[in-house]
């Protein structure tokens, strides 16, 4: 398989206070290049660990992982990672924060112009010289989004990027993310608590169980592209898929509605 992501029989154990915590159990999945995939599940389902393994931040313990045919390692130019908290450097302006990342990818053409375009696309025109302290949480996460896509990586790993935002800002940024994805056509793996977000953004939603993380369901979302998350909110198909997935979740895991975050 050329390109794409292959995860085969991956298990992972953390040592925590002298006890072994089994976070991932025999996970196998394949993601086609260019696909937008969401990993959902309750806290402790190991979705972030899986993302850490894909981005090479956590070493693989058992099983096999291939990203574009190669084993992952941190700092690969064809992978980009976005964190739950914005991880902006407070001593750098919005522009400089994006530049800080983009300069690690040599050979990008017209980097400065590309950064300004990206900042513009996420709605930060006029805020290029502003420091993170002066920006709201939503605006900081926009900078982080621009930074992630400034790397122009074929594989983008997002960990709860909008988890801390209010509902309105979230919708706005989800649409920005979709627009960036339409432009770059990267393979995206999005970790989220939010089932609504997963359905609205993804081609495919993978539902994981709580500890140890196992795959409970793998559902294709056939809503037409390009999508607008805002417009989807009033669309019947979206809500049908959402409730179908919700029921499937509850049946598969015998979960109470509270154990999976609502969107």
């Amino acid at each position: 398989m050329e390109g794409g992501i292959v995860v085969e029989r991956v298990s992972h154990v953390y040592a925590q206070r002298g006890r072994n915590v089994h976070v991932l159990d025999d996970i196998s999945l394949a993601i086609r290049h260019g696909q937008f995939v969401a990993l959902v599940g309750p806290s402790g389902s190991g979705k972030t660990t899986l993302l850490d393994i894909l981005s090479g931040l956590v070493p693989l313990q058992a099983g096999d992982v291939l990203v574009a045919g190669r084993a992952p390692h941190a700092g690969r130019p064809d992978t980009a990672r976005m964190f739950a908290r914005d991880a902006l450097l407070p001593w750098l302006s919005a522009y400089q924060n994006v530049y800080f990342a983009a300069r690690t990818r040599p050979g990008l053409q017209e980097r400065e112009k590309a950064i300004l375009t990206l900042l513009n696309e996420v709605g930060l025109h006029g805020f290029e010289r502003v420091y993170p302290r002066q920006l709201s949480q939503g605006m900081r996460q926009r900078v982080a989004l621009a930074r992630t896509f400034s790397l122009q990586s074929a594989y983008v790993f997002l960990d709860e990027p909008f988890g801390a935002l209010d509902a309105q800002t979230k919708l706005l940024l989800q649409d920005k993310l979709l627009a960036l994805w339409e432009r770059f056509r990267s393979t995206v793996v999005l970790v989220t608590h939010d089932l609504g977000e997963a359905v609205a953004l993804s081609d495919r939603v993978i539902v994981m169980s709580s500890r140890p993380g196992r795959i409970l369901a793998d559902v294709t979302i056939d809503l037409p592209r390009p999508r607008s998350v805002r417009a989807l909110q009033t669309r019947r198909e979206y809500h049908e898929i959402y409730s179908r997935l919700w029921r499937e979740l509850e049946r598969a895991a015998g979960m109470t509605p509270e154990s999976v975050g609502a969107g």
Partner: protein
Amino acid sequence: MPASAEWGAASRHFGFIVLGRLALLGIGVAVWEALARTDVVPAAFIGQPSIFLPFLLAHIADGSLLVAIRETLTATLAAFVIGGIAALLTALVLTASPLIKQLVDPFIDAMNALPRVALVPLFIVWFGLGTLSKIVSGISLMYFILLYNTLAGAHSVDPDHIQLARSLGLSRKRIFTSIVVPTAIPAIFAGLRLGLVYTLLGVVTAELIAGGKGLGSQISYYSNTFDANGVFAVLLVLVILSYALARLMTYVEGRLMRWR
């Protein structure tokens, strides 16, 4: 933004604050003067503003206080620079090598817990009555204050920033220069600000004991001759110097760290 609203309120009350502070100062001086004049507290103990203020001006005019100020400030500056550079170099080594840091940590703690002022007589035995023992006394305070602050600053690196740097493929050296150092800068400045004031303290303490020409020696001289007005005149100089140095550091800090 709350910060700017606060600032707006401060600037609206600016005139009131300045006048209010001057009034407080005036009341303080007036009460002091009254206590001394009415002999409620003997003027021999607390001095008398109407005597030591002219005394102060006269000694500034004839240059004798200026010599003392220069003497004290030169030693302070030397101790600040030498102690500061030594502290930063030590912090660099200890941050680069966690193993060495772990090794020497208890010794640094112990040295820092030691009241350095108590060492001053020993410094005078070792380095004589001259400028050197004053500088060493200043260094003994400056070095540990800045070392502590710098290590704490370097230790406060946000784990998210390290993860980001790793995901970008930055080398250990680049992580140090582009993440650890900028993170530590505010703590380093706090250390420099505090260290400067304490260096002055260290130098003046050595002068109190060793004599010579500095401000501390002047205090020692005036108190030994029961001249409270002389003591207060020199103390006033020290207060102004110390305050000015601290403000200067705050100003430089503000200029260099606009992002805060």
